[in-house]
Every structure is written in C-alpha cells, then in structure tokens.
C-alpha cells in the first residue's frame, strides 16, 4: 500500500514552536524563491538600475568634458568665448537636443541612485557598532554625498550663468565672458565653485571606471589602467575648471 506523503509526516506541535527560523529557512521559503521571483525586469533589478546610471553617467561625463573645453576658451579672450557661446545657442535643435538629453540623464541618474540608495539602506537596518574599511576608496564610499552636492551645485550654476537670477542685475544674456568675470569676482561664489569641482572630481574618480564595471566590462590588465585614467580625468577636470575662478580672483582674467 502506498503512502500519502502529506499525511505520513507531521511536526510534533507539542515541541515545535512556529519560530521565526522556520519561516526564514529554506524549508519554507526555498519554494518561494523559485516561484515568486524567477524573473525580474531590467529596471526592477539593481543591476539594470546600475546600468542606467552607467549610461547616463557616461553622457554626463562627456558633457562635463566638452563643457570644460568650451569654458577654457576664456583664456583665448572675450571674443572667442562669446562667439563660441553664440554658435552653440544659434543651432536650436542642437541646443534643445542637448538640454533634453542632459535633463533626462540627470533625472534617470538621480532616480536610479535614489531608489538604489533606499534599497541599500533597507538592506542593512542595523549598523555595525564598529566598521572599518578593508579596501575601498573614500571617493567610492561617498558617492551618496558627492552626488546631491553636485545636484545643488548644478541648480545654482544654471541660475548663475544660464538664467542669471543668481547673478542679479549684472547678468548679461549671451555675454559669457562678462558673466564669468563678474560671477567669479564675488569670492564666496568662487569658493562654492571650487568646492563643487572637488566634489565632481571625487564623484568621477569612482564613477568613470565604475560605469564600465556596471556595464560588465572588466579586464585584469585594462581595468587597473582605467582606474588610473579615471583619476587622471577627474584631476584634469578639477584643475581645468578650478583654474577659471582662481584666475579671476588672482586678476589674471579681467
């Protein structure tokens, strides 16, 4: 005679309390893992979100590089820089295409970062009494600080040099050189820029190589080089951008 598996086995209710453990351990939830979540959407997954951050991060990085190269024309004189600015603004499709792309990138980058950040906080509800780093960089651990600071800076920066509210009555539409000199002559603004650029540098030290890792590109020989490149690129950006307010403050640019 065959046995019915469901009736020939029983847990002795007298001793077995319905503890947390049995709910947690594989007896109960192993089936759960297989059935409720055998697939996951791209955006739902942490890996997918990181890929979005990588792609948008790459776009923002390329923009920042181009932006700096544009800005450095300040050393070529007022005419060159203002002409360049005029050129950019005159091609409306390019201008708005770029603005929309950047805005979307920023929104996606921040949305993904925020959602991941919240998830990560929930993943460790109780902090260690003592925790020490065994092998990560300061920059990589502070992305959630450098990121929001950069966001605040970007808003200020747009109000400062694009729309002009932060610059006040001295703002002149289209006269980039003039706006720069006036803006950076105000020392607190320059200091804010310098701090923001240092944050940007830190953010990129990690971000520029991390985006490759998130996209699944890693190689024992090239990844270490890439990490060096990330630091070099970040340093170049910081130095290039900081040089402008410093030059204004020192009176090199007038």
């Amino acid at each position, binding site marked *: 005679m065959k046995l019915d598996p469901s009736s020939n086995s029983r847990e002795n209710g007298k001793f077995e309390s319905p503890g947390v453990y049995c709910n947690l351990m594989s007896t109960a939830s192993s089936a759960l893992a297989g059935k409720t979540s055998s697939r996951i959407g791209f955006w739902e997954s942490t890996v997918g979100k990181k890929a979005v951050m990588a792609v948008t991060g790459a776009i923002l990085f390329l923009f920042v590089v181009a932006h700096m190269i544009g800005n450095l024309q300040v050393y070529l004189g007022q005419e060159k820089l203002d002409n360049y600015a005029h050129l950019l603004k005159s091609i409306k499709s390019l201008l708005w295409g770029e603005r929309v792309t950047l805005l979307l990138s920023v929104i996606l980058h921040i949305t993904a970062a925020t959602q991941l950040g919240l*998830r990560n906080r929930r993943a460790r509800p109780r902090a260690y009494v003592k925790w020490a780093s065994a092998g990560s960089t300061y920059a*990589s651990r502070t992305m959630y600080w450098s990121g929001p600071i950069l966001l605040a800076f970007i808003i200020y920066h747009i109000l400062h040099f694009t729309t002009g509210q932060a610059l006040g009555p001295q703002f002149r539409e289209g006269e980039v050189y003039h706006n720069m000199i006036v803006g950076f002559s105000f020392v607190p603004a320059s200091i804010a820029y310098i701090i923001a650029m240092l944050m940007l540098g830190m953010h990129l030290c990690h971000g520029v190589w991390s985006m*490759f890792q998130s996209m699944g590109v890693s190689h024992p020989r090239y990844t270490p080089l890439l990490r060096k490149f990330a630091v070099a690129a970040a340093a170049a950006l910081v130095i290039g951008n900081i040089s402008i307010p410093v030059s204004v403050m020192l009176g090199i640019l007038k």
Partner: protein
Amino acid sequence: MKLKLHVWRQKNAASAGRMVRYEAEADEHMSFLEMLDVLNESLITKGEDPVAFDHDCREGICGACGFMINGVAHGPMPGTTVCQLHMRHFKDGDELYLEPWRAAAFPVIKDLIVDRGAFDRIIAAGGYVSASTGSAQDANAILVPKKDADRAMDSAQCIGCGACVAACPNASAALFLSAKVSHLGLLPQGQPERNERAIKMVAAANHELFGGCTNIGECEAVCPKNIRLEFIARRNWDFLKASCTFREEKAAAGAG
C-alpha cells in the same frame, strides 16, 4: 596575551542584543576560534551561556564561520577565515569588537550566528547546470581550454561564508552571486542556461533584500578566497545581455 573582547550577545532572533565585555586569555599559536573556545569553557564553568558562533571544518573551506572583528569581516588577515586566523596577529592588551554579519537578508539567530539561508535560495533559483544523473557523455568529449577552466575554478572557490555581504556598506550579495554565475558561465557545460541563470539569480537576490552593488570593492578585500570584482562585471554583462535578448518561453505540448 590578554585581550579585551566586546562580543555581541543576543539570545535569539526576537530579542534585542547588546555588546558584552569579556577578558580573554590567549596563546599566540591558538586560532581565533580556539581563543573563543577557551573563553566559552570558562563561561560554562561559571554557569554562564557560552558565546554561540558558527564553525565546522576549521580549515577555511566549509564557510560556516565568520563574524566581524573590529569592523572587518573575518578579521585583519586578507584571504583568511576566522577559523584560520591565528592569535599571533594580535598583541597583548588588544581590544576587539566581535559582531555578527549584519544584513536584512541575514537575520541574527543567536550571538554571532546568522541565518544565511538566502544564499541557498539564490543557488536554488538557478545556480546549477541541469544535468540529471546518468545523462552525461564522456568527460573528455567537450574540451575546455585550460585558461577557462582555471578562471572558472577561481570563481568556483567561493565558500559561501557571507563576508562579502557583511563587509559591503549596501549588504549586497553581488560577489557571491557573481562567483556562481561566472563559474558556470565560463564553462561550456554552463552555456545553455547562461542567460536564464543570470536573470533568475539576480531576481532571487533582489527578492532576498540584499542591496545593490556600487562597485566599491569592500567585498573583494575581505573575501577569504580572493574572489575578484572582475566576476561582478561578468555577472552584469550576463544579466544585461540576457535582459536585452529575453524571449518568453513558448509552452509546447508535452513539455514539462
């Protein structure tokens, strides 16, 4: 040598825990767990509850042991589990904080013991090759380039101890998961299920409340088997590729 220990004591999953201070005596040739054994013997003799910690093989291969020592998973020696960590790396008068792995996915069961069942469930979700017993062809029928076999072995060495999760500020299981995805994904036998495996295992990890990877590398630094961050990139690649090329399975008559 004499040590001051601050040990996390928690009676069970439901109760609140706290750090308790103990004085311990150790010999430099002892392993860290032997130092705790001696402490426990003295606690039992005094009628107190000994410190509970998971351990089994004490050879650094079963993956049962592991807790934080002064905030570093498995303690200060790289590539070493706590059972293989010897007291010669500490000095008289050291003050040590011992805490369990902390993660939502690893609830504390007692003292330094946590429930790592989530790891089993991640493997169950897809961390295998579906090769039922008896179905195999000759072992040498498929050639495997030595370099691939060696890299597969590099990642297959994972002992599932959970140190990567413990060390990660996000409590992410990325290194654990990627070790299995890479091990099987690097071998020809693992190819047919490679895409599906990446999706299923990532889904399972999401389901288990692990955090996401932010590529910072704490996991790699504490991994007792030196599993490399490179494998996380491989997992990302497999998952992204699988996501982009995903097709619904067609239910065919007579299947399954």
